[in-house]
Structures are given as structure tokens and as C-alpha cells.
């Protein structure tokens, strides 16, 4: 059934159809609407056989999820940004213990400076945590990925993070095709844990492992991710049969057939990139797109297959690895090991900076002429940066950098776009 609905609400309704048994909540913008909706459903009796727990921190939210999951309950939580960092120790613990928790990350920048808008600093900070990380391009995909995420997590006994762009997706009203409870039940069987705390069969979970086996236990996590590379497309195919929609999977190409230039990216910005590419195609330019859905595990072979014919690859990413540049682009480089296309890293959209089609046009044309720097900061205001650098050279007590720079920018809110 098609429904005009807010992204967060759509995801919450999909989560409810997955019949979670324990839902933990701690508020942080822009995740709030998801957990508020779930709270309402539990309190109002629409979502039964579910404990909704308002905890005192994200660290507790993940810890409660760990306890619940280890006791055989299907557990769900959601967070973003500072919240994800605050729970980070437990994030690693959940995957180390092999607990199939599903968590939405409503992607948001990390401070300082504090900022509530979208980028991927939060999810990227946990990319080595052992969680699988799926990135949604649209609200429809966000909804669908959550349903697939529970299947994936529970089959592999590993947690899954479903990443959806804060505000751009979470707060956007658009039409989505809502599944029926019947469809979801047919796709997602009840959770059958591999390990469970139960007095009928006492086990010890989470004890120490020394050097004699730690590498092997950690390798097993990697092996499960490699297994996920096979399972994710299978689950997407099965999803298509049950729901009639082609969502999920590892990665998707768009107009790459004869492309000399391929743009690689993730999340909702793929929409803008595809529009730009359509316009460039209309001009006869050979450009295409590769959208990554599964960032962890990272589909190296698929990325290589999609890019091996390209003369150049432009990676547009909403994250910054300070001191080197790109994160996604480093992974793309690994996929292309031994091949020699030009690879450009474009850091864009940090802290909610709009990624405009206009800027992308200029960027991609520069790439086509191979006059792009290896590392580009899209639409960076050099004026503001240079002024601050000059200030720091001339006075020792130059003061808080962010304040200075905003004074130079002038009025604040209007500059976000």
C-alpha cells in the first residue's frame, strides 16, 4: 500500500512489523521520530509482546540490547552522532559477542563543533566495529533494508547498522510502499538464537580469550562478513520475490555500460548524482554511477568489476579521515589494486552542507579533464579558511576558531545551504 509518510515513521512501522521484543530508546536528533513512533505503538497497544525501555544513555541502550539479545529476544535501538560514539564500547561488544541487534543510525555529523545535520562521520567512526553497515538511498530503501537487516543479522549472528541520512531521509515526507504484516512474517521467521542465557542450559558468555585463540575468534567475524557478501544479494532477491521491490543488495551501477568516468557514493546524495549524470549523458558524456549499499562488508570484487573499465573514478563521500582525506575512497582504491584509473577523493556535504547539482557538474567536468586535485573539498569557502589561518599566524591567542570563522561568514543560519 502506498502511503505519503515521513521517513522516520515509515521505518518505525517497518520495525514494528519485524516484531521486535525489546526496543531501547535514548533521544538524539535526528533519530527521535523513529523511537517516539515505536514508543507510541507499544504504549498504545499496537505493538504487543514488546518491551519499550527508556534508558538513561546510549551506552545503556546498547547494553540493554546486548542483555536482551543474549536472552533470545529480538532487540532494536536507534541513535546518531554523539550517541553512537557514546555507546561505542558497547557497539564493539555486541558484535564481538555475535549478537544480532539491529540499529538505525540517522547519520549526523560529530562535534566539535556540535552540529545536528547530516554526514557520515558517525557511522564511519564505527566502520571497524564488526557491525554490518547498510546505507539507504531513499526512504523506501531505508524501510526495506530494516526488514532485510533482521534476517541478515539473525542468520549470521552479527549486528547490523542501517544508516539513513539524518533529516534528508528521516524527516522527509515522501511516498513509500508499505509492506503488509503478512509479507514481513513470511520473510522474517522468529529469532532462533545461536547462544542464549537460559537456566535450562547454563552457558558462560563473554569470558576472556587470550592470545591462543583471539585471532581465530576475530577472524571468524571477518569470515561471517565474507559470508554476508553472498547472503546480502540472496536476501535482496528473496525480498524482491516477496515484496516486488528491488532494494538492498551490495551495490548498484547506474549507466556505467560504456562509462569512462564513474562516480562512487552512498546514501541519498546518489539521487542528486544520478540527476547530474543524466544531464551529462544528455550532453553525450560517458559517465555513470556506482552506489554502495553495503559498506561493511565492503564488496571489493563487485566494486572492482563495476570500475575496472573506467578511466577515472570520482568518490564523493560525506566523511573526512582527518590527516589523509577519504574513507570510502580508500576502500575503493583497495578494490582497484593493480588497476590504474585516476581516483579522485571528493569530501562533500560535511555537517549538512548542501551538495548542489551545479557544483557536481563543475566537479565532474573537471574530473573528465583530469584537472581535479586528488583530494577536493567540495564548495569549501577558502576565503574563510585563509582568513583564519592568517589570524592564527599573526596572534597567539587567536581564540575559538569556529567562532572566528562564523564571524567571517556573517549571519549563520542562512549559510547552511
Amino acid at each position, binding site marked *: 500500500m502506498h502511503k505519503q509518510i515521513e521517513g522516520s515513521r515509515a521505518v518505525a512501522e517497518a520495525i514494528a512489523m519485524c516484531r521486535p*521484543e*525489546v526496543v*531501547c530508546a535514548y533521544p538524539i536528533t535526528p533519530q527521535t521520530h523513529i523511537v517516539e513512533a515505536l514508543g507510541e505503538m507499544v504504549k498504545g497497544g499496537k505493538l504487543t*509482546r*514488546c*518491551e519499550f*525501555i*527508556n*534508558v*538513561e*544513555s546510549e*551506552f*545503556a541502550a546498547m*547494553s*540493554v*540490547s*546486548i*542483555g*536482551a*539479545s*543474549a*536472552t*533470545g*529476544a529480538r*532487540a532494536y535501538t536507534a541513535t546518531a552522532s554523539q550517541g553512537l560514539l557514546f555507546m561505542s*564500547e*558497547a557497539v564493539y*561488544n555486541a558484535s564481538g*559477542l555475535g549478537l544480532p541487534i539491529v540499529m538505525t543510525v540517522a547519520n549526523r555529523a560529530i562535534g566539535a563543533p556540535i552540529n545536528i545535520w547530516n554526514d557520515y562521520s558517525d557511522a564511519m567512526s564505527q566502520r571497524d566495529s564488526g557491525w554490518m553497515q547498510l546505507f539507504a538511498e531513499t526512504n523506501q530503501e531505508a524501510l526495506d533494508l530494516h526488514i532485510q537487516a533482521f534476517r541478515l543479522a539473525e542468520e549470521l549472528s552479527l549486528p547490523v547498522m542501517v544508516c539513513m541520512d539524518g533529516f534528508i531521509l528521516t524527516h522527509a515526507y515522501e511516498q513509500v510502499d508499505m509492506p503488509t504484516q503478512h509479507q514481513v512474517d513470511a520473510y522474517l521467521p522468529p529469532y532462533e538464537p545461536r547462544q542464549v*542465557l*537460559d*537456566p535450562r*542450559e*547454563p*552457558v*558462560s*558468555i*563473554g*569470558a*576472556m*580469550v*587470550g592470545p591462543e*585463540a583471539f585471532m581465530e575468534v576475530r577472524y571468524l567475524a571477518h569470515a561471517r562478513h565474507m559470508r554476508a557478501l553472498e547472503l546480502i544479494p540472496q536476501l535482496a532477491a528473496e525480498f524482491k520475490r516477496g515484496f516486488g521491490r528491488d532494494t538492498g543488495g551490495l551495490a548498484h551501477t547506474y549507466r556505467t555500460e560504456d562509462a569512462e568516468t564513474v562516480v562512487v557514493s552512498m546514501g541519498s546524495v546518489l539521487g542528486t548524482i544520478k540527476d547530474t549524470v543524466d544531464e551529462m549523458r544528455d550532453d553525450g558524456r560517458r559517465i555513470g554511477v556506482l552506489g554502495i549499499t553495503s559498506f561493511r562488508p565492503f564488496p571489493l570484487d563487485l566494486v572492482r568489476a563495476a570500475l575496472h573499465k573506467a578511466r577515472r573514478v570520482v568518490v564523493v563521500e560525506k566523511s573526512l579521515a582527518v590527516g589523509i582525506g577519504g574513507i570510502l575512497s580508500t576502500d575503493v582504491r583497495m578494490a582497484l589494486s593493480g588497476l590504474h584509473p585516476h581516483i579522485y577523493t571528493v569530501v562533500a556535504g560535511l555537517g549538512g552542507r548542501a551538495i548542489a547539482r551545479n557544483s557536481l557538474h563543475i566537479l565532474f567536468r573537471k574530473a573528465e579533464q583530469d584537472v581535479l586535485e586528488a583530494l577536493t573539498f567540495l564548495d569549501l569557502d577558502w576565503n574563510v579558511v585563509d582568513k583564519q589561518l592568517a589570524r592564527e599566524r599573526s596572534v597567539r591567542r587567536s581564540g575559538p576558531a569556529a567562532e572566528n570563522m562564523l564571524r567571517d561568514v556573517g549571519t549563520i543560519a542562512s549559510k547552511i545551504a
Partner: protein
Amino acid sequence: MPFQPIKFYQTGTFTVGNRLLKPEDRSVQSHRDRSNAINSGHRACQGCGEALGARYALDAAMEATNSQLIAANATGCLEVFTTPYPETSWQLPWMHSLFGNAAAVATGIAAALKVKGRNEVRVVAQGGDGGTTDIGFGCLSGMFERNDDVLYICYDNEAYMNTGVQRSSATPPAARTATTLPVGQNPGNVFGQGKFVPAIAMAHEIPYVATATVADLHDLEAKVKRAMEFRGARYIHLFVPCPLGWGTASHDTIRIARLAHETGLFPIFEAEHGLQVSALPIRRQLPVEEYLKPQKRFAHLFGAKPKWDVIARIQERADRNIRKYGLVQQETA
């Protein structure tokens, strides 16, 4: 067979023949069919109060729940000496997640049991003083405030033992730890405001709060049993001497714990819904030196020139506890 009322305040060995007691008053440990929840073979130091206390507490909880019990454990000595894989002392389902989240993990376990309709299975969370009064304090307070159905047991040995005896917020004034060495103007730990978590637990008005020491294991068992009669958040703060960290003789663990009670330095009481309902009386209050002297962590207070001013301040704390918790019964004519 007639039973005479037994009062558990004999000094010395504290052994009371079970045959003098009514069956229901007999110690859980004395039962042949006790659960041995923490089995022998673990790696605790000789005379470890924490190992002793945990064994009694968990066996009592196992008996009270008919062995329908799950434990969540914080990082610390108890976690480390009862494992590592593939060895485990735990004869009940047991989980270690992190240092600071035992209370929240227990909340999750309790929530899962609730949705699954397994109301007969109960949950205990446990941690050291560091895992409870410091790093796990947020999760603990959250669990209290929500009144989750969890019994939390804090094994208080007054420092971070597992990492080599560093100061925690439960370390007493003047005590030597690896981070409060007996050097400088004010040797040992500072006289701070203190952080007595049982009182903080009471401020949450949770159904049941109790303190106990390993000197009176019968009292401990009774309190665990009592705790299991309530639903909701419960807290037991157990005083457990640590021979290694305190510099005490292994055979003195019980004696030191008893002295902590008899000097008034560690008050033993119960509270229900925020109000104190009982206190284990001190028959004859002993001066704090008797407690401090046998412990190397306080050795810098004694020697050729005892620091009477510092000892007097510690004595004040003991006297205050006695007044506050009514530990010395007024003689009635």
C-alpha cells in the same frame, strides 16, 4: 525436636551447629544440595572476600529462585578469577559484557524474560566497587529509577583490585592505594565527601537495599533471600576484604570484615522503599585502630609516631555511622 532461639553474634569462630537451628534457618551453604553456583577451581587469591561473598550470595539466590537465575557480571576480579575460557566456575547462565554496563545488561535480560513470559527466571547483576560506584554508576541509577526487576550486588573491596589496587570512589580516607600512595603532606587517600552508594540507592526509594559483610554470612544469605521476595530493583552492598589490596593476612578476611562492623566503619542495615527497617547492632563498639592496624594500607598511620589526628577523623566517621544508622542499641533498664 525443640529449637532454641539462636543469636548470631558469637565472636571467635562463629560456627553454630546447624543441628541447633530450625531447618529454615540453616545456612544455604550447609545444604548438601546447594547449587555451587561458583564452583571450586577458580583463581581468586587465598582469603579473597569477594570469592567468598559471591559464593554465598549466589547460592542463596539460587536457592531462593529454585535455580531459575541468570547473572550479568561487570569486568573485575570476580569476572577474571572465575574464567577465562574454556574454564568457567559458573554453574548458572552467566554473561560478562563490559566494565560499566552490568546493570543495563541485566535490565535487558529481565526485559527479554518478561516478553517471553518467563517470570520465574530472575536476574542478578554484580560488579566490584569500581564497576558499581564509579564507571557503572549511570547504568545502575537508571536501573534503579526504572525499578527494573534486577538484584544488583556490589562487592566492595574499596579499590580497583583487578588492575592493581587503584583508588575508587569507595576507597576510604587515608587508605594507601597505587594511586593514593602514603607520601607527601597527607599520605593515602583524601578525606572527601564519600560516596556511600547504599544511601544513594535508598534515595531512589527502590524496594530493597541492604548492606552486609562476609563476617556474617548467615545475615548475607538471609538478605539475599529477602531481596528475592521483592520484584523491582534491589541492591545489596557487600563488604569484602581483599588480602592482596589491603595488605591483610589471608586468614584475617573474616576478622577484618567483623571489625569493620564492630567499629562502626561499615554500617550493616536494611532499607525498604527508601526507609531503613533494620540494623545489625554492634554489641560493643571497638576503637577504629583495631580495624586499621592489621591492614598495611593504613600502616602509615601507625609506627613510632601514630597520626592520632587522622585516626581521630576516621573515628568520627565511625561514630557518625553509629548515630546515623542506630548501630548501638540503647541499654534499657
